[in-house]
């Protein structure tokens, strides 16, 4: 079988978001590759190049991990394949009380 083209990268195995390395379409099944990890996710949103999408379900207030480190927390329920960005996560550092 031909190798499936990877459209996303999982930087660290601990991460709960993957990074699109192409402009990905809504409804597309995309393979996110990381070190020793490969998983297929069906996208619920269009994901622009360089943007993040969830690979697991996250309740509001869940720590979002990229590089295996905390980049913020979810402000809403997030399910796999959803775009993860400023509309549904917030930073925890240098953040004014909302």
């Amino acid at each position: 079988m031909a190798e499936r083209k990877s459209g996303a990268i999982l930087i660290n195995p601990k991460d709960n978001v993957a990074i699109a390395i192409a402009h990905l379409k809504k409804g597309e099944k995309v393979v996110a590759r990381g070190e020793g990890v490969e998983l297929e996710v069906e996208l619920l949103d269009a994901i622009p190049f360089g943007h993040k999408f969830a690979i697991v379900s996250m309740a509001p207030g869940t720590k979002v991990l990229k590089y295996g480190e905390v980049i913020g927390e979810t402000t809403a329920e997030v399910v796999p394949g959803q775009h993860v960005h400023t509309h549904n996560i917030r930073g925890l550092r240098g953040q004014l009380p909302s």
Partner: protein
Amino acid sequence: MEFKGYARPDGSVGIRNHLLVLSTVACANDVAQRIAYQLNGAVCIAHEHGCGHPVPRDRDQVRRTLIGYGSNPNVGACIVVGLGCESVVPDTIADGVAKTGKPVELIVIQKEGGTINAISKGVRVGQKMLVDLAKQERETHDLSKITLGLECGGSDTTSGLIANPALGVASDLLIAHGGTSILSETPEIVGGEHLLARRAASPEVAQALLDLIKRTEERFLSIGANLSNLAPGNVEGGLSTVEDKSLGCVLKAGSAPLQEVIGYACKPTKRGLIVMDTPGYDIESITGMVAGGAQIVVFTTGRGTPAGCPIAPVIKVTGNPATYRNMEENIDVNAGRVLEDGATIQEIGQEIFDLIVRVCNREMVKAERLGYGGFAITRAAWSG
């Protein structure tokens, strides 16, 4: 490993041999510019600072930056141009630069009796300096004489994914050869500081970094600024929070131990990896590192930037292949080949390091070829 550069009397080594015409105050800018215009190849620094600094710390930061700029090893000779009554006293700048042993001339407009006399004297002394500079030849020096400024700006996701890790590889190689790398942009360390503190050379250095980050975070909050208010280009490029940006930014520093944390435009006292407290504004950050002695800068960008520095080569690297195609005339290294051609981060890092060495030897970067300058001093209220 060796390169060919210009030996300075203070033991430092320049990779360029500029005649710098340095204004000490906005009131002297026009005279400084006219002097430089008349002298083939001279570089002029004109700026908005030098007087009206009611806060001594701010005045001292301007003074330190100007002295540091004139003292940079890439400057072979310096003409300091002042008005005469400003709070950043011109004599202190000329004396500060002269401590390096390089030729320095001071032109004070009020002492010379006006614009025409000041320009005339500046051009006359500058002519002689140009002749002397042209006689200097490059000699072989050890790479340990090189201080590299690490900069990123117009970041997007590819910065942390590709360009910054590749620059980290290059920085580690330079440090392995005894050189020094300066990581800058304090607000863009917030959220990634624990990774640097973990590899600090001593508990004191780790604490100095953590204290600086805490002060920076508190200062932003105290004025109602939100650190996660990223630039629109960062957000469009996929970065969501300050932590997201910072964790990518700190990768420029590779894996070397952190040796020292220094203030804006201060000179490192250690070799190896240094953190300098600079703002996230690229031009102010580069100015601070060059005033601290960096002879060369590598600048990673996701969105693309033409930025350069008047006295130091700035190598531009992007991890975004579309940005490289869009702004190839401004960007030296296409690290986006990791995404499109199967190049590895390690390979790109080695390529950046090899380019650093060639540029130290005289190869011109794209920002130099296009004549890009850029000079800005950060206000002390923004320094930690």
